[in-house]
């Protein structure tokens, strides 16, 4: 019957999209794995290991991720206009990747990784398979969560100027976000959390300041974070 025929047609369609989704999930799983290694290397920063050494270690993983995004792009090219249908399947991985890249970038340059820079690093091309802005912003929020811990460990290691620099960066970042009229959603919640990071960094800065620890010639030259 025509009913059966239509449903048979649907079945084929849905199976196709199901297998597409499976391939996407496979890429996302591979991303997860690269993220894990990259994250684990990045954690060394809390043990005050020199930034260049860390950059060296993670470079390989970035290449892997770039390759994976390329593969993702190819899969999505098979189903034009359905980026957002499958978006949920690699979303949280993307956000974590942005947070890692942004943290690295900040360590290197002391600046915020811009949206276009992130796309570039991942080999994404906004015209066909770009980086969703909200994913980028969530990633930046995630990055901010890492900063208080970084500050604490840097001070422990004797870098007393770090709190000031981080505080300036985070204050500016927070102000920039404040301008956005965020919907009451996940991103908003993450941003709301940023103020706790800010507060914690302020408190470390306060600790350092109240003990008069800032004056010394501390600017550790091996760090790129000169604000």
């Amino acid at each position: 019957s025509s009913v059966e025929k239509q449903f048979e047609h649907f079945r084929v369609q849905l199976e196709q999209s199901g297998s597409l989704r499976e391939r996407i999930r496979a890429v996302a799983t591979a991303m997860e794995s690269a993220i894990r290694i990259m994250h684990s290397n990045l954690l060394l920063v809390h043990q005050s290991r020199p930034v260049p050494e860390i950059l060296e270690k993670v470079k390989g993983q970035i290449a892997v991720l770039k390759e994976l995004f390329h593969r993702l792009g190819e899969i999505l090219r098979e189903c034009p206009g359905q980026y957002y249908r499958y978006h949920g399947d690699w979303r949280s991985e993307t956000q974590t990747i942005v947070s890692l890249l942004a943290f690295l970038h900040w360590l290197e340059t002391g600046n915020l990784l811009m949206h276009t820079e992130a796309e570039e690093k991942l080999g994404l091309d906004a015209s066909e398979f770009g980086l969703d802005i909200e994913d980028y912003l969530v990633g930046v929020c995630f990055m901010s969560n890492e900063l208080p811990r970084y500050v604490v460990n840097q001070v422990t290691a004797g870098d007393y100027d770090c709190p000031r620099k981080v505080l300036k960066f985070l204050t500016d970042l927070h102000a920039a976000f404040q301008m956005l009229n965020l919907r009451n959603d996940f991103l908003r919640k993450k941003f709301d959390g940023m103020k706790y990071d800010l507060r914690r960094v302020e408190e470390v800065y306060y600790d350092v300041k109240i003990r008069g620890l800032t004056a010394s010639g501390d600017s550790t030259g091996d760090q790129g974070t000169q604000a």
Partner: protein
Amino acid sequence: MDLQVLRWMGEAVERTTQGQNDKRERVVKASRDITINSKKVIFQVHRISKSNREEVLEKAEKDLAAVTDQYISRLVKELQGTDFWKLRRAYSPGVQEYVEAATFCKFCKTGTLLNLAEINASLLPINDPSLEPLQINVLDYLLGLADLTGELMRLAISRISDGELEYAEKICRFVRDIYRELTLLVPDMDENSDMKKKMETMLQSVVKIENADASNSWLTFLSKPSVCSSLQEQRLA
């Protein structure tokens, strides 16, 4: 870091997400209007009885056409140039209800299932030819179909009370067929938790029709004087 850069970025992003948010809200509103008006069409169809069939369906079809022309077209306008999948959550409820209304009308008129391809073809005229046309996706179609069975259940029960037993029987068969077909499809659907819930409701609908149908067939049986023997006589006495 240059604050200006950040500010600039902020504004750029603002423009994008703000625009998105406003658009999303307008799409949600359009979807809500589609829902309300599709529900009205469905309500109209339920007025059907043996005597007013033609008249009721004619009115319903006119109303449905009005939904298409006024509300679906507004949705099309709001969505233009957007990735349909991005805002799907925002308009999906309305589209589902529209599918429900359209298939309900069609079934009552012809006793057949309105195909997705047919619906999508009917939407082409209201699309702006310069843009990618809005096409209802399989998932929303199937979700609408799942709700359709609830309406058919109500229809079947009222048809039974009205004595149109064969018609009810026909509805029952149709619903069962859809239910069976969907049973096979559900696991392949994208995020199928909604659908799973609907499948349960649908099963209840099927069982309800069956029960109504059953009691009816016993009752028709009862009302045959040759059979209802002593019991009926007792009552008449």
